[in-house]
């Protein structure tokens, strides 16, 4: 948002963002008697005093002529599964409703070091488990355009808040699409970096081998700024990489001419069950070609197994990662440890813990976990072969526009299957960037670019070129809302 970015005073930018943020805090507009506003429940905690103090310090630095830092004075929101020292971090779970961590996540510490101001914490599906942001102990988040719909998940609060200008950006986590899918539903840019590119230290783990810290912003340009500030090795995260970080900002304006863009989905075949995605993809292909890129179809033979593989691994790792919330250390506590666990954790969390514990148990390990790990390697191999012939892949993020609230209530499997376009890159640990690609009756549709490991600069460069060309087109994609 220009006002937030261009404000002369950090304090002015912060006050503007706070004003937009206040109505989005949980408990505003959620009960039946009040009108449910767009983006309701997007925020769980606002740190007004802390933000003002930080902004005032930045204004003092400016007045004193200290050279500016890359994110000086920009108001940033933080998904509530990332730890913020002294500021409640709930993971949207009743279990952690009062949990105030004593330390900052590395990504949060790097934000502060780059001059960003932490404004507050965004809602999510509990511990990141969900694709609609309805699985929050603090209530469902409403879509920023149509409050009868979900904003996507699990980073639904982050997407809704940024879409409504309550922050310049939100940092969040993407395990199987949790950044990309809500970004696509809310007409935003969302980056899931390469696994190991941005430190996970301080991110409450869902599935440790899949979790990535990334962000939701308005443009590839903003995303590139954050990439330069947050990417890089962290001695506190053994899975973070020492691979040197190339600047995404420096290459942004180099255009998409000559790039080979692979299409993993055949638009005609896709049209049957995902007409919206198919139309967006067809139009995007024309844009890529107009930009001088070459569009090439690419086969991904193991894509069909990705959702099953992903959900086995996710549940297995989650079952262990949730074990510390056993009712002894966190939650209501007291005499009834079982009760603390029973009420402290939501339905979707319990479902995954049960599935994961089952899949890891003696006699089933080989059939589930071990087999899933082997299929995971095959999915990753598909990408290696694909990148022999193309530079980047362009694919849908979701089948259609943001679904209505309660759409998956009776059918969790349908919710899992809705992740089919986003989980393959997660399994392969590859960077993927979601970007706006049109609207259907005013509701946004997004696509994503996936690249080889460490190719984030190229992803930003291509998305930046696409946006410039795409913005010149009418936003509506013909065909009507499904």
């Amino acid at each position, binding site marked *: 948002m220009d006002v937030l970015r261009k404000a002369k005073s950090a304090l002015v930018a912060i006050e503007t963002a706070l004003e937009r943020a206040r109505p989005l805090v949980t408990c505003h507009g959620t009960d039946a008697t009040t009108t449910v506003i767009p983006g309701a429940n997007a925020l769980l905690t606002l740190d007004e005093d802390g933000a003002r103090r930080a902004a005032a310090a930045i204004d003092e630095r400016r007045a004193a002529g200290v050279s500016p830092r890359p994110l000086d004075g920009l108001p940033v929101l933080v998904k509530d599964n990332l730890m913020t020292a002294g500021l409640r971090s709930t993971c949207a779970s009743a279990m952690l409703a009062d949990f105030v961590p004593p330390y900052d996540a590395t990504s949060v510490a790097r934000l502060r070091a780059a001059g960003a101001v932490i404004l507050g914490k965004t809602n999510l599906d509990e511990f990141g488990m969900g694709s609609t942001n309805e699985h929050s102990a603090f209530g469902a988040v409403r879509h920023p355009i149509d409050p009868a719909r979900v904003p996507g998940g699990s980073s639904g609060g982050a997407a809704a808040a940024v879409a409504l200008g309550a922050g310049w950006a939100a940092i969040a986590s993407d395990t199987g699409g949790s950044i990309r899918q809500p970004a696509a539903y809310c007409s935003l840019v969302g980056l899931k970096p390469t696994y190991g590119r941005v430190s996970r230290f301080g*991110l409450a783990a869902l599935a440790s081998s899949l979790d990535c810290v990334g962000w939701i912003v308005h443009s590839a340009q903003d995303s590139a700024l954050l990439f330069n500030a947050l990417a890089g090795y962290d001695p506190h995260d053994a899975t973070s990489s020492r691979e040197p970080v190339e600047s995404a900002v420096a290459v942004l304006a180099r255009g998409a001419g000559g790039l080979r863009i692979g299409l993993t989905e055949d638009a005609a075949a896709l049209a049957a069950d995902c007409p919206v995605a198919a139309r967006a993809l067809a139009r995007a292909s024309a844009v890529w070609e107009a930009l001088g890129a070459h569009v090439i179809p690419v086969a991904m033979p193991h894509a069909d197994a990705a959702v099953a593989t992903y959900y086995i691994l996710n549940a297995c790792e989650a079952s262990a990662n949730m*074990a*510390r919330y056993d009712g*002894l250390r966190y939650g209501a506590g007291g005499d009834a440890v079982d009760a603390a666990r029973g009420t402290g954790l939501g339905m979707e969390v319990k479902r995954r813990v049960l599935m994961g514990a089952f899949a890891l148990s003696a006699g089933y390990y080989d059939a589930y976990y071990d087999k899933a790990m082997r299929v995971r390697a095959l999915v990753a191999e598909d990408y290696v072969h694909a990148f022999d012939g193309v530079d980047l892949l362009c694919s849908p993020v979701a089948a259609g526009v943001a679904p209505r609230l309660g759409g998956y209530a009776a059918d969790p499997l349908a919710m899992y299957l809705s992740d089919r376009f986003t989980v393959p890159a997660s399994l392969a640990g590859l960077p993927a960037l979601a970007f706006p690609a049109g609207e259907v009756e005013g509701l946004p549709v997004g696509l994503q670019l996936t690249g080889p490991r460490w190719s984030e600069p190229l992803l930003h460069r291509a998305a930046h070129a696409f946006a410039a060309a795409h913005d010149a087109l009418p936003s509506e994609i013909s065909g009507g809302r499904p």
Partner: protein
Amino acid sequence: MTVCRWLPTIGLEIHVELDTRTKMFCACPRAALTATPNRATCPVCLGLPGALPVVNAEAVRLAVRGALALGATITPAGWFARKNYFYPDLVKGYQISQGTEPLGSGGSVVLPDGARVPLRRVHLEEDTARLLATGSAERIGVDCNRSGAPLLEVVTEPAVHSAAVAEAYARTVRALLVHLCVTRGRIEHGELRVEANVSVAPAGATELGVRVEIKNQAGFAHMRAAVEFEIARQIAVLEAGGAVCQETRGWNPARGLSGETFVQRTKEDAHDYRYFPEPDLPAFRLPAAWLREERARVDGPDGTPALFVARMEQAGVRTETREAVFAHDAAGFVRQLESALSELPSASRMESPLAAAANGFARFVIPALNAAGQDMADSSLTADALVAVLAWLTDGRVAPDGARCMVARLATDGGDPETVGREIKAFLVADDSTVIDTAVEATLAEHADWVAEWRAGKIALRHALLGTVMKRLGHGHDARRVALALDQFLSR
């Protein structure tokens, strides 16, 4: 005889705390059991949401040394696994351990009598927190100082058939690992913990009997007593036609060596720990240089206690001294002393530096440890300090008695030997005949009754008189000269 009809089988698990500076997966220091609870903690070892483990390379290296010393085959490409179970002292709900490919596989331990105990595996893992009584029946404390401490777990095959061999095995493992500085091995500090699995089957049977696990064995003698008791108990149950239950039994050390094991926990089934590879820690490959260096260290001239004792023998150290040194110097102090002594300019005039080190240790350090009730690992004495004292002894600046007092003081309080020596007046006074004579005269005058009794034939009183004179003089006087002066005065 029951002994012939039944064959007991024992498997042992020894947990050894590695002597690192910091914990297994974070930068917190390893804390003593007596430290204020929960002070040596951080988000990682408290298992807070979002915290991640990072492997302590020093711990891996010590574990490699330990595994090599135990003859295990090293797996150079290793990985950690999550062992999932719930217990109040397990902060993450899982323990980071090793799975189907441990750091070391197989191996064996040769006991002093030549018997060999085969090992199943040697692996690295993190310790749990500790439960503390709070004085209230309704509340129990959890001390996370120990949470995440680095452990080496050494597991035998179920191949030991007597409590005596079990005890000899545990003592040998401790001696070996302490000798190589893998651990300090102090049982009273929880740095070495032994668990025994005991079963009894009819002699000649091909299958083992039902297994009972015994916990809380405070020390080797207790472990042996508990295993002996358990073997007898199981035989009695079987002889009476009963069946042994698969369970965990405790042992209360407060009841002494004649105590009983008691039921702690009955298990219906073996636990399903749902092991899977730890996703927070990438698989690792041990540096070839480490393996080479640690192999050289273990196979080197002093690699094992047995090799070290043999080298002392060659250097001409007497049998009693060798045994005393081995019993007291588990931490390699004598080897440090040897290398420090061999760097002295006077080294060429010395008996072999190893013999000088061993003799100096036996003569001065062991009495000091005994007097203070200390273990070498608790002592503040450094090799350099002892070298200084031994050098002064050779130069005649201190008498043996003064040296003994200095070492005693250095062992308990540490400090600079020169300062300590001056404080306790240990340095010999150059020309002291008048001083000695005055002291002798004064003492004899003061204890005229003792002198009279001595003259009447109570000859032991000479020693008491000598001690009193020495006390009056301080340590700066050679006891032999004082004795001479005393005898002269007495014979007058």
